[in-house]
C-alpha cells in the first residue's frame, strides 16, 4: 500500500473509516477488496500487540498508570467505532451493503443498550439536565467552522510564526507568489514573474487587484510593503530573509522589479510575504494590521470577539472570484478529543492536520454516513504530505560520530510497520528531506532493515551484540573492552510520538543497541536539541519548512551549526560538517532552477551516505471535512487557502 507512493499532483485520495479501519478508495490504486481486508485485519492485530506492548513497557510508577488511564480513555472514545471487530470494507457491492445494514442495526441496538445502562447510572445528571430544560440542538447554522489547535500568534503574515497564524493570514493577505503541490513558486497576486538576469527579478501584477478596504493594489503598495519589511523599525522576524534584496522599483502600476545584491534563487520563496496597503506598510501601522489585517485575499477580516474566535467573510473583490462560503469562523479548540467530538456533533466543518491518525477510528460514526443518503457526514481527504520526520544523530562526538554506528542504526530500523499501524497509511517512507512530489526531489538509496549488516557494522565499530556473538563475528579490537552500545533517544511528551519512539527502542534492541527513552516537555526538548545536548532525537520538520530546497543549506551546511556566534539558532543541530556539501548548497542558491535540481540531487546523495539524519517518513496533513463543505481540495502543505475555491453546501 505504502509502496506505491502517489505523486503530489495525482488524484486526491478519498478515505473512509469503517469498523475502525481505513479503506482507501483510490481512483488509481486497484486494491482488491480481499487483500485490503486481510491487510486491515493484520493491521489491527499488529496494533493491538503494539498497544499491549506499550502498556507493559510503560508499566510501573505513576507515569505508567497515567499512560494506561489515557489509553483507556481513548479506548472509550473509540467505543462507537471499534465495537465491531470485523473488518467491514466498503459498501459498494450489494451483498456487502446488506451485511453492513445488518451490522448497522446490531450496533444501534448495542448502543441503545449501552446508553440505557449509562442513563441509569447517570440519573442524577439527567435530572440536572432536565432541570435546566430547553436541551435541544441548533443545526441550522450558516457558514463554515474551522477548528485549530492553538490561537494564531498574529494575523499579519509579516509577523506570524505559528502554522495556524500563517495559514489564516494567507487567506486574508496573500503574497506575490505561493507554492503549488510540487512546492514550486507559482504566481498568486502576481500574474507572472521572470528573472531578467540572475540579479533582477521582474513581476507583473494581475489586473484590477483590490484591497479589502476598496483601494486598488498597485506596484506602489508592493514596493511599500517590502520597503517596510526591510526597515528595521517594523521589527518583522522575517525581514532577515530579505537580506539579499538590494532595492525594489515600481516602474509601472503593475510592474515591480527586485534588484538583488547577488544571485539568490531562494528569494522567490520569501516573496510569499503578504502585500499590504501602503498605509499599513510601516511600523506605525503595524499594530493596526496585527489586530485587523487588510489584504487582497479571498477572505476579509471581520471580527475577533475573543482569543478563541476569528470571523472572516468572503471578499467580492478577490481576483479568483468571491468565495462560495458565507462566513468563516475559525475557532481554537485545544483538546484533540474535543475537536473530534465537535466534528461528530456536526458543529465543525474542517480540521486540517490537527487530529492524529490513531484517533481516526473515533470518527467512524461521522464517516459512516447518513443511512438514507449514504453520504458520509465526514470525509478524510489528503495529499501525500511534505512534513519530514527524522532521527537526528549527534555527529559531533561520542558513538554517533562514527559513520558505521549511524549506518547500523539506520539498518536496524524499519518504518513500514509504523506507517501501517500508527499512521494508517497517512505517511510515506522518506529517503531524504524532500518528498517524492517535490520539484527538486531525487531518489537516494536510503537503507533497508538488515539486522545482520547492522550487527556487523556495530562489531566493526567495536561494539558487542548478543547476535554478533552468536554468529561469531569479530569482536572489539584488541585493547578495548567489549561493550554494548547504549544510547539515549529524546522525544517530546506528545503521546503519539512517544508511542513511536517505543517501537524504535524495540527495533534497535533487536540489533543489540540499548536505547533509553527520555520524553521532555517541548521547551526543554527544543532547548536540549539546540544546545547539542542529545545523542538521538526524533523530530519533525513541518510541511511549511520543507518547501524551498534551500532548507537543506540551513539544516546541513556547517555554517549553520548552532553556536554562540548565531545565538544557538543555527539549524544544523547534529553538528554535521562536509565541505563539499557546503559548496554544493551554496552554489545551488546562485543558479537557475534546472541547475539547482542537479546540485540538490548531488547534495541529497551526500547527505544520504553520511547520515546526519536518519530519514523516516513524510507525513500528510489530512483534512477532515464535513458534508457542509464541498469542493475542498487539500494541499500537501496543509494550507487553508483551498477554502477560497471550496463551496458551502446549501442547508
Amino acid at each position, binding site marked *: 500500500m505504502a509502496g506505491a507512493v502517489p505523486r503530489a499532483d495525482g488524484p486526491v485520495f478519498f478515505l473512509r473509516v469503517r469498523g475502525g479501519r481505513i479503506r482507501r478508495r483510490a481512483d488509481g490504486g486497484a486494491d482488491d477488496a480481499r487483500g485490503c481486508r486481510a491487510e486491515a485485519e493484520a493491521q489491527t492485530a499488529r496494533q493491538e500487540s503494539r498497544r499491549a506492548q506499550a502498556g507493559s513497557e510503560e508499566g510501573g510508577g505513576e507515569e505508567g498508570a497515567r499512560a494506561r488511564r489515557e489509553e483507556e480513555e481513548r479506548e472509550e472514545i473509540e467505543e462507537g467505532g471499534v465495537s465491531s471487530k470485523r473488518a467491514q470494507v466498503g459498501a459498494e457491492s450489494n451483498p456487502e451493503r446488506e451485511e453492513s445494514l445488518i451490522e448497522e442495526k446490531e450496533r444501534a441496538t448495542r448502543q441503545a443498550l449501552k446508553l440505557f445502562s449509562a442513563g441509569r447510572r447517570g440519573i442524577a445528571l439527567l435530572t440536572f439536565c432536565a432541570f435546566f430544560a430547553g436541551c435541544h440542538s441548533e443545526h441550522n447554522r450558516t457558514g463554515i467552522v474551522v477548528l485549530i489547535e492553538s490561537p494564531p500568534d498574529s494575523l499579519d503574515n509579516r509577523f506570524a510564526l505559528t502554522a495556524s497564524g500563517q495559514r489564516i493570514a494567507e487567506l486574508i493577505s496573500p503574497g506575490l507568489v505561493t507554492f503549488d503541490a510540487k512546492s514550486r513558486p507559482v504566481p498568486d497576486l502576481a500574474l507572472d514573474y521572470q528573472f531578467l538576469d540572475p540579479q533582477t527579478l521582474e513581476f507583473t501584477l494581475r489586473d484590477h487587484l483590490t484591497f479589502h478596504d476598496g483601494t486598488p493594489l498597485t506596484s506602489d503598495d508592493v514596493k511599500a510593503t517590502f520597503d517596510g519589511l526591510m526597515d528595521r523599525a517594523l521589527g518583522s522576524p522575517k525581514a532577515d530573509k530579505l537580506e539579499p534584496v538590494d532595492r525594489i522599483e515600481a516602474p509601472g502600476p503593475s510592474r515591480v522589479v527586485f534588484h538583488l545584491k547577488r544571485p539568490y534563487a531562494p528569494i522567490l520563496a520569501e516573496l510569499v510575504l503578504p502585500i499590504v496597503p501602503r498605509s499599513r506598510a510601516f511600523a506605525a501601522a503595524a499594530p493596526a494590521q496585527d489586530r485587523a489585517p487588510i489584504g487582497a485575499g479571498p477572505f476579509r477580516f471581520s471580527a475577533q470577539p475573543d*482569543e478563541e474566535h476569528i470571523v472572516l467573510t468572503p471578499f467580492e473583490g478577490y481576483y479568483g472570484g468571491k468565495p462560495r462560503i458565507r462566513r468563516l469562523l475559525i475557532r481554537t479548540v485545544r483538546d484533540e478529543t474535543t475537536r473530534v467530538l465537535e466534528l461528530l456533533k456536526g458543529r465543525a466543518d474542517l480540521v486540517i492536520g490537527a487530529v492524529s491518525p490513531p484517533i481516526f477510528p473515533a470518527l467512524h460514526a461521522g464517516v459512516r454516513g447518513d443511512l438514507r443518503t449514504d453520504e458520509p457526514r465526514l470525509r478524510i481527504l489528503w495529499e501525500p504530505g511534505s512534513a519530514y520526520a527524522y532521527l537526528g544523530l549527534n555527529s559531533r562526538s561520542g558513538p554517533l560520530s562514527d559513520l558505521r554506528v549511524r549506518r547500523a542504526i539506520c539498518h536496524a530500523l524499519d518504518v513500514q510497520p509504523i506507517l501501517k499501524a500508527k499512521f494508517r497509511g497517512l505517511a510515506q517512507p522518506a529517503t531524504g528531506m524532500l518528498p517524492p512530489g517535490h520539484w527538486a526531489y531525487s531518489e537516494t538509496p536510503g537503507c533497508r532493515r538488515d539486522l545482520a549488516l547492522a550487527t556487523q557494522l556495530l562489531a566493526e565499530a567495536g561494539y558487542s551484540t548478543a547476535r554478533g556473538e552468536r554468529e561469531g563475528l569479530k569482536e572489539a579490537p584488541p585493547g578495548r573492552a567489549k561493550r554494548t552500545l547504549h544510547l539515549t533517544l529524546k522525544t517530546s511528551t506528545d503521546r503519539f510520538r512517544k508511542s513511536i519512539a517505543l517501537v524504535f527502542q524495540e527495533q534497535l534492541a533487536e540489533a543489540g543497541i540499548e536505547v533509553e527513552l527520555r520524553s521532555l516537555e517541548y521547551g526543554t526538548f527544543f532547548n536540549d536539541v539546540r544546545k547539542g545536548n542529545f545523542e538521538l532525537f526524533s523530530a519533525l520538520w513541518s510541511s511549511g519548512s520543507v518547501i524551498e530546497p534551500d532548507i537543506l543549506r540551513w539544516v546541513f551546511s556547517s555554517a549553520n551549526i548552532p553556536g554562540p556566534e548565531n545565538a544557538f539558532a543555527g539549524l544544523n543541530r547534529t553538528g554535521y560538517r562536509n565541505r563539499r556539501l557546503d559548496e554544493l548548497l551554496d552554489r545551488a542558491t546562485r543558479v537557475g532552477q534546472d541547475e539547482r535540481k542537479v546540485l540538490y540531487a548531488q547534495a541529497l546523495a551526500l547527505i544520504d551516505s553520511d547520515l546526519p539524519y536518519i530519514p523516516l517518513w513524510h507525513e500528510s496533513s489530512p483534512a477532515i471535512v464535513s458534508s457542509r463543505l464541498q469542493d475542498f481540495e487539500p494541499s500537501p502543505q496543509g494550507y487553508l487557502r483551498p477554502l477560497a475555491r471550496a463551496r458551502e453546501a446549501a442547508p
Partner: protein
Amino acid sequence: MRRLAGAPLAIAGSLILVSLFLNLVPGDPVEMMLGEQAPSVDREALRRSVGLDRPWYGQLWLFIRELATGNLRSSLPPFQRKILPQIWAALPNTLLLTFAAMAVAILIAIPLGVAAASRKGTAVDHAAMGIAVAGVALPRFWLGPMLIILFAIKLDWLPVSGADSPRNLILPSVTLGTALAAFLSRITRASMLDTLREEYVTVSRAKGLSPSAVLWKHAFRNALLPIITVLGLEFGALLGGAIVTEKVFAWPGMGTLLLTGIEKRDYNLVRAVVLVFTLSYVAINGLTDLVYTAVDPRVRRQ
C-alpha cells in the same frame, strides 16, 4: 484581621515562587516564539526589547511596576499585547464555572450525605458512599469527554464545547463539580453522624418534632460548619481542576489563559494568572470566615 494581614504575604510568596520557577524552565518567550522559523533573527535585541535580559527579580520588579500603572503587557515581542483586558474577559468565565461547579457539588452532596447519615448502615448509605468513591476516582479529563459523548453526541441535548450559551455551562460544571461532590458528601455524612449523636437531637425527637424537622433544622444546621470549611478549602482545588476542564470544554477562562501563557512562555501572563488565582483563593477564605459568623452565633460572639 490577622487573616487579612497574611494575604499580602501569600501574594508575594506566590509571585516570587512563580518567577523563580519560570526562570528555571528552559526556553524563553523569544525562543518559543521564533521556534524554527527565523534562524537569523537577532534574538538578543528581541530579548532586550521585552526586558528578558534582566535577572528574574528584575523581571518581577518590571512586572509589578507595569501592574501598578495598569499597563501590564505580555512578554511576547513585538506587539506585547495588554494582559489586563484578557484577564477581565477570562475571569468571569472561570468564576462562573467554579461557582456553578460548587452549586452542582452542593446539590449532589448534601442530599446524598444527609440521606446516608440518617440511614446509616443501610443500602442507601452504602450506595451513596459508593457513588462518592466513584466520583473521587473519576479523572476530569476522562469524565469530560464521556459526558460529552453521552449528552452532546448520543442524546444530542447539549453543545460539545465553547461558551456561546448558558447550556454550555452544564457539562463543564458537572465535570468539575463531581469530585468535589463526592468529597463533600463524605464530609456531610461524617458531620451529620456526629451531630445526630448529640443530646439536643434526642431531646428534639423526644419533643415530638417530625423526623425531617429534626434532621434539617436541628442536626443539619449544626453540621454545616465543617462543610463550609471544606468548601472554602476546596475552592483552590476547583480552580486547579478548572484548568483541565476548561481545556476539554474549550472554555475561555483563566485556565485556558494559563495554558497559553505556559506554552508560549509568556512570563507576564503566567504571573498575572497566578496572581489572580492567589487573590481569589485569599478572597474565598475571607468569605468563608464571613459565612462562619453568619451561620454560627458562637463565632460572632468571639
